[in-house]
């Protein structure tokens, strides 16, 4: 697959311009700047033009369909249609870019919220042995200084699930890609932070 260095609407417009000058579809390719040389070579070797297009990696692969029947139809009208489709794609890309710029701000906010909550919940989970002592202080009235450090208690398990879920929801809210992969990272990070905090905590208690 070859990736073009320009966007799809430029390809469409260039082809339309060349065809307007009287070139056919194959020859039009040779006049486009930065068109992959290997593909031009393949055109010279006589490969079918639709084959060439399908080995291009396009943002809108559907535009290949525009070319499929272009060879058989009334050229003048075809050029007009290529041009208006190119204009449509350009307008869309501009609008999408504008939206992405706006969303980028939100995404950054979301990312900060995600990291902060991830670390906070993991740290609270690390300090969770304290809670059992607080609980005994509230229910029995005495605070004991013995702490049990286990990762597999109900409390730390529920913190782990909450952390993963919270991150999953925030990822989904900000329309991120590869959600499951990122949740797995959260899972690992959570366990690491819990271990570090508990290590630190247990060495602190000894003194």
């Amino acid at each position, binding site marked *: 697959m070859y990736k073009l260095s320009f966007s799809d609407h430029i390809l469409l417009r260039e082809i339309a311009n060349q065809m307007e000058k009287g070139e056919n579809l194959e020859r039009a390719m040779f006049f486009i700047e930065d068109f992959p040389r290997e593909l031009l070579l393949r055109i010279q070797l006589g490969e079918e033009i*639709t084959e060439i*297009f*399908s080995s291009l990696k396009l943002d*809108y692969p*559907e*535009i*290949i*369909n*525009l070319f*499929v*029947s*272009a060879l*058989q*139809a*009334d050229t003048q*009208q*075809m050029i007009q*249609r290529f041009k*208006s*489709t190119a204009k*449509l*794609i350009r*307008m*869309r890309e501009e*609008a*999408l870019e*504008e*939206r992405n710029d*706006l*969303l980028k701000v*939100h995404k950054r*906010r*979301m990312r900060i*919220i995600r990291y902060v*909550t991830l670390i*906070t*919940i993991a740290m*609270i989970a690390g300090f*969770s042995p304290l*809670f*059992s002592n*607080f*609980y005994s202080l*509230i*229910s029995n009235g005495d605070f004991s200084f013995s702490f049990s450090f286990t990762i597999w*208690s*109900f*409390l730390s*398990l*529920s*913190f782990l*699930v*909450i952390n993963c*879920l*919270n991150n*999953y*929801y*925030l990822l*989904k*809210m900000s329309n991120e890609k590869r959600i499951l992969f990122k949740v797995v990272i959260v899972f690992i990070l959570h366990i690491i932070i819990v271990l570090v905090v508990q290590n630190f905590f247990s060495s602190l208690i000894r003194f």
Partner: protein
Amino acid sequence: MHFSIVPKEFLHRITLGKIRKHSEDFISENDLVKLVVLCNLAILSFFVSMLLCYFLIQLNLIYTLIVSIAISLALFFVFSDYVRSGIIKKRRLFDEVAFLIINSLSINMKSTQSLPRSIELLLKKGTVDNFYKKYFEDMIFNLNIGADENQTIDENSKMFHNKKHKYAFQSLKNPDSFIETDPDFLTRLKKEIKLIEDNMVIFVAISCLLPLVLSLVLSLIVSPTSPTLLLFPLLYAVFGTATLRLIQNKSMEGKNV
């Protein structure tokens, strides 16, 4: 083929809800199979967690029941919502390229003067996505066995949500059925941004404060070895998924206008 313990009709109504009508053509066979498997897995996990809680952790029977129900419900809701948002995503991607499909169909129509032939050309290079490839293949099949062209076009235009696209598809045989401008797209994008902003405030308020505060308070009130603690994240799973789903439904309604 895939045996479902819960009646399939009921299962689909719970999991897919509004999108059953909204993006009917985008629910693939594979998605439905996934839902059935998930449902069966949830029921299986109910029994497994019953065994685990009762014999391994040795909770009493009521707690065992409550925890197992919460586990299976949470599992089912979270993962079925994952499948559901996959379907919504497919729908959105299709909406974004619908104008190109109609435009290439209309160019093909112009050069071949026959509907089945122009759809064949559309499918020729495998550039269309698999899920609407099947849709168009069915259309060709129907046309080839002699269905009425106008009727087939009318029926299949349901797939396009945008009214303008729908009309353009319906008038495919008309030489002017070409989409030149697309102002709806811009307004829809603006609406989408506003919705995301609104939803973010709501969701951050619910999602970040609730789990933190409640788990802290709960851990002080409830003994750390009590299974009530296990219930909380599972309820959060159900609750959070329901909120997200509500937000999704709201944004779908926004798109239909």
